[in-house]
């Protein structure tokens, strides 16, 4: 379907979300441009994960709407919508009774791809995320945390979705593995040019991976800035974040220049 390239891929229009009397999100307006990595940064309970789940309709807004390529996502078939969006979560959520290969192949399989195409795609993806081909026959419990999350990323990419939603995907990993996966994420993004929404509470990660950072606090969007502006921002919440993380942020923000 032809899409005007200037239309935001994802657009929140005045979105609010309440659970009972608790306002989780208040009047969110946000646009995500094609091929960018937008990072939703904020502390626990700031509404960033909810925002992510609103995109693939794991959660429905109390008011407002979310548009995908200009179309309100309520109007799209929810199953088609989700299959066109890769979803990676912190706990990975691999199916423990499936091998790595079958885990990666979940969406192609339900989409009815022929077996040889699936097999070829799995091999291609394993290579893409830096996993040895022989891991295909392993079960999730036989993998390390880093390997599991690589499989999680491969699974999300399997049917080549245009959009990737990532909810603290590297949050549970040790610092070395996290660093490795962040680096590979950047390389991957250079090759694949997905539209990515990435949730994290780690400013360093946000600066390193994001093309723009959307800072959330108590259900409200505080500010949206590219990394190099974020660290100099006078916005009280942004500067509070920068102060909390302290030294060494410049180098994280300038990874593009080096």
């Amino acid at each position, binding site marked *: 379907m032809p899409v005007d390239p200037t239309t935001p891929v994802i657009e929140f229009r005045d979105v609010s979300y309440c659970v009972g009397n608790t306002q989780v999100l208040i009047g969110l307006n946000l646009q995500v441009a094609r091929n960018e990595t937008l990072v939703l940064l904020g502390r626990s309970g700031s509404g960033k994960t909810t925002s992510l789940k609103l995109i*693939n309709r794991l959660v429905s807004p109390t008011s407002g709407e979310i548009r995908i390529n200009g179309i309100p996502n309520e109007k799209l078939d929810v199953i*088609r919508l989700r299959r066109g*969006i890769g*979803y990676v979560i912190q706990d*990975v959520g691999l199916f423990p*009774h499936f091998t790595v290969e079958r885990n990666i192949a*979940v*969406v192609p399989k339900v989409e009815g791809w022929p077996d040889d195409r699936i097999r070829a795609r799995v091999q291609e993806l394993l290579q893409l995320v830096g996993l040895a081909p022989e891991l295909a026959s392993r079960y999730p419990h036989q993998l390390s945390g880093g390997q599991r999350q690589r499989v*999680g990323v491969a699974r999300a990419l399997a049917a080549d979705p245009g959009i990737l939603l990532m909810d603290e995907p590297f949050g549970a990993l040790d610092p070395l593995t996290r660093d490795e996966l962040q680096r590979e994420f950047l390389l991957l993004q250079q090759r694949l040019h997905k539209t990515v929404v990435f949730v994290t509470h780690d400013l360093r990660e946000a600066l390193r991976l994001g093309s723009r950072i959307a800072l959330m606090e108590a259900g409200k969007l505080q500010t949206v800035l590219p990394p190099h502006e974020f660290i100099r921002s006078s916005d009280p919440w942004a500067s509070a974040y920068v102060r909390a993380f302290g030294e060494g942020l410049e180098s994280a923000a300038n990874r593009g220049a080096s």
Partner: protein
Amino acid sequence: MNVVRFILQNRTQVLDLTLEHLWLVGVSTAFAMFIGIPMGILIAHRPRLNKPVLASANIIQTIPSLALFGFLLPVPWLGARSDRLAILALTLYALLPIIRNTYTGITGVDASVVEAGRGMGLTESQLLWQVELPLAVSVILSGVRIAVVISVGLATIAAAIGAGGLGEFIFRGLAMVDNRVILAGAIPAAIMALVADFGVGYLERRFSAR
């Protein structure tokens, strides 16, 4: 060794009653699975229903079995044949462990696995058949195992209303004050319970190994 001799002498009758017993237990367990597993799946997905359903199954469980057989006796179609009645009563007793274990098995599936599946665009039925049931199957089977073992024991009481089964020997032995006759019913029943326990237990382990 008197018992062994007695059993051998009456082997055709022992065999007949054992088969009858097996029929009562098998049919009632099949019905209970047919009703209980979907019911357990339903209450796992509709949390509002879980309390009333589990409470009802619990209440049935507290009715003394002899009384339940008695209550059901005047029911028109059922009372006409005592094996129908016995099968209904045994089915009711088998429901609780099967519903409860199905519920526990499904709700015990790691929430992140279900969320990932739903987020990837699996339909609710794909999620059920490909993720929830395979991951819950060993817990469900352990409920079936408990149900079968309980049924084998309870089915002996069905003889009191003339539904046959190994209970015939037990009641007859009690009336005759003859331990050999009681044991001719009790021993095959005990063996049946052990075999069922082992057999379903084997399936349970096979499925959980994955």
